[in-house]
């Protein structure tokens, strides 16, 4: 299912949200941004929990669902706090959406078993929700959301309550299942690594606006604005006095290295810096150096640089902002 979010406007207290977003069928799109940027609000508007003041949400290019109640939208959702029904067993939780649709008991039973297998929880049917670990709960929540076969699945920071290892494991799982089943997914997160690893495209949001949408590579390599650049990965910002415009420039740490005489290409920029610190990160050092303008530069280096050492840095991809 494709979904178009057209000129959605929503305000609450002194916060206002304005967003446009197009998502293709089968696409996995993350909405990434700092807390308070409006990403969850946008998701809740899509889910039908919040009603926008203006704008529309179009499904599959034709169906306007802006004013439909969420129950009628056939959109699944996975919540940050799992939102499993505590008074129902694992299988009754998964069966819930199917029971609402009044499917025959046999069909429901088969579907529940199939889903449990999909989320690797075979044999958990009779379990009580309270007996599950966090990871297991989120698997059940995923199975439950998938049960009515929604064409669009919304994820609201589903992994943020889990530990790092489990988070990595589960996001791979989610991506695998999404590819298998083929639903469209919108995934809200504030974790850029998570967004990068799981998504086809990422929408970066800040202060109620979508700053940029693109593949992880695009956003990283060609950020269209300073916020995106700063939020995804690390950037260094410098001003180069010799530059005609005299304005600020930026570059990624991995695009700069120690300058060795004769090893520079056309377009490389070379600047003089003084080492401030180097920390060993296993296999490489994460270093900080300071320019003549007192601007800090972060970069990676194969050897330890003593504090106070003066040297030259070669920057290969410098861009203006």
């Amino acid at each position, binding site marked *: 299912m494709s979904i178009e979010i057209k000129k959605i406007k*929503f305000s*609450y207290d002194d916060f206002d949200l304005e967003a446009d977003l197009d998502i293709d069928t089968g696409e996995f799109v993350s909405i990434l941004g700092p807390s308070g940027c409006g990403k969850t609000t946008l998701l*809740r508007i899509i*889910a*039908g*929990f*919040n*009603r926008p003041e203006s704008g529309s949400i179009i499904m599959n290019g034709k169906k306007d669902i802006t*004013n439909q*109640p*969420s*129950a*009628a*939208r*056939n*959109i*699944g*959702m996975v*919540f*940050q*706090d*799992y*939102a*499993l*029904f*505590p*008074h129902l067993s694992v299988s009754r939780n998964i069966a*819930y*959406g199917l029971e*609402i*649709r009044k499917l025959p008991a046999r069909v429901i039973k088969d579907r529940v078993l199939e889903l449990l297998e999909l989320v690797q929880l075979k044999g958990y049917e009779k379990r009580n*929700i*309270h007996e599950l670990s966090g990871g297991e709960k989120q698997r059940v*929540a995923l199975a*439950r*959301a998938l*049960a*009515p076969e*929604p064409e669009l699945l*919304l994820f609201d920071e589903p992994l943020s*309550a889990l530990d790092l290892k489990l988070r990595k494991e589960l996001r791979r799982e989610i991506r695998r299942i999404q590819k298998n089943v083929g639903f469209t997914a919108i995934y809200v997160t504030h974790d850029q690594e998570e967004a990068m690893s799981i998504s086809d495209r990422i929408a970066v949001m800040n202060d109620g606006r979508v700053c940029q949408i693109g593949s992880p590579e695009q956003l990283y390599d060609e950020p269209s604005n300073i916020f995106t650049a700063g939020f995804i990965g690390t950037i260094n910002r410098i001003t180069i006095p010799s530059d005609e415009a005299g304005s600020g420039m930026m570059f990624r740490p991995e695009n700069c290295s120690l300058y060795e005489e004769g090893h520079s290409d056309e377009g490389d920029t070379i600047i003089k810096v003084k080492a401030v610190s180097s920390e060993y990160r296993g296999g490489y050092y994460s270093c900080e150096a300071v320019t003549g303008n007192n601007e800090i530069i972060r970069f990676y280096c194969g050897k330890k640089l003593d504090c106070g050492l003066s040297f030259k840095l070669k920057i290969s991809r410098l861009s203006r902002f």
Partner: protein
Amino acid sequence: MLNYSAEKILPAQRAGGRYSASSILFLFPVSVLGVFFIFPVLSIFRNITFAGFIDTLQNPYYRSIISFTFLQAAVSTLSAILIGLPGAWLMSHLEFRGKRLVNSLTTLPFVLPSVLVVLGFVLCFGNSGVINSLLMKLLNTDKTPLRILYSFKAIIMAHTFYNFPICLRLVSSAWSQSGKSRIEAAQILGAGPVRIFRTVTLPVLMPAIIAAASLIFIFCFMSFAVILVLGGGPSFSTIEVEIYRLARISIDLEAAASLALAGAVITALLTYFYIKLQKKSAAGFSNDEAPIALRKFGCLSRPARLLMLLYLLLISLLIIGPLLAVAIRSFQSRAGWSGGLVFSLNAYKSAFSGRIAGSAIKNSLIFAFSSVLISIPAGIIAAYASVRKKIRFPEFSETMFMLPMGVSAVVIGLGYYSLSSIIPSASENRAVLIIFAHSVIALPFVVRTFTTGIQRINVSLIEASQTLGAGFAATFIRIELPLLKGSIISAAAFAFCISAGEINAALILSDGAIPTIPIAIYRLISSYNFFGACAMGTLLMFICGLAFYLIDRFGGSDIF
């Protein structure tokens, strides 16, 4: 940190398309309140003139009475909460034999007419009561060893006895759902038990505690017989005493209404403040964590066990003592010309030989069950509308539903005459009137119970259900109602007791033609038959105790 606060969903709910449907539903509790409370009360309040009202407020005597009313209610509330909290812990954390029985017993003080409560108290704790008689024998003295009654502390004690079950019920249901992982997390972080209670448990319990405190406060604010008799005389007078005097002895209805209005305004303001406070502390916690595992009594450490036993002994003495004293009295009669007491069933014979007993029992049961059936849905709707902000001024609405407790019973009684005079006097009409009036009287308890219950339901559960295709009704029936099971049982117990013990509305609205058990008790007493009254009271306690036991028992398993 994991949860949506209530604010987040606010805009959606206001703009939502279900607005009109929910306001039609909301009409049910509003019209019940309007016809059976607001209309009768306004029919009396309209006698008030502004000048008269101001006079009342400026009268220094009334002012001192208002401030004493305030003081005793505040102290009583504090005491009832403090006594109730350990009980709430006990009921929510421990599994022990007789737990259901204890649970059923706790609401019983509500069903007894205040005359019998006072009598039970005196029989138990009085200067010639059971405790003092035992001590006198033990110490071999003629002087009263423990002068408990006829003092300020006796008022507090009786109010505690009457009211701590409210705290126990509301808080224990919150506590049993407070979630153990939070506490475990705090333990891992190295917090001691006191610190855990203060920083982790207390905030979770706060809404329930505030809800209980507001109910208890108003109850004590309106207290009457207990204060006069057990306080020992006019030095301890409350607003209600003065209203009674003005309405029934001086027959100055305007002054009575003015004073009642002043009391109602005070309780309304306080209630409003309580509700605001509760909203603040209710934001953001859920009930979908693992429930606290019930421990066996034996698992406790020795001092803890001792402490708990001591507590159980204290509350049994406090609750069961007076009730038991009434029950024992019912099995006694005078023997011989000297009038000594012997065991006998005469009281039962005299109380139940007449025509009234059978119909009184039948009527009381019908009224109590019907009031449960009306007040529970009305209460759920009213609580739901305000917690989920389906209406514009939720705090105002909640305050209004608390007011049936906050307006003087004497004045409401006068108002019932107006209500009664507009309804044709067929006895079926009268019965319906009484049932609705009882439901309204129970509403403050029911609404409060459901408010805390609904606040504990995690909003994302409802949203999850909606995204899975369930509409408003299906979500309510399949998700919210089962999660409210504990609240429904508590609310039903309160509503049942309040109706079963109510006398004012039943007497006035029926013109005395539809007897109930409390009316029979009242009439037995006015014809000197105190033993018969105790017999009737014992039967009332037995019926209600049995009803709660059954509700608890079957409600405890899955009824949905």
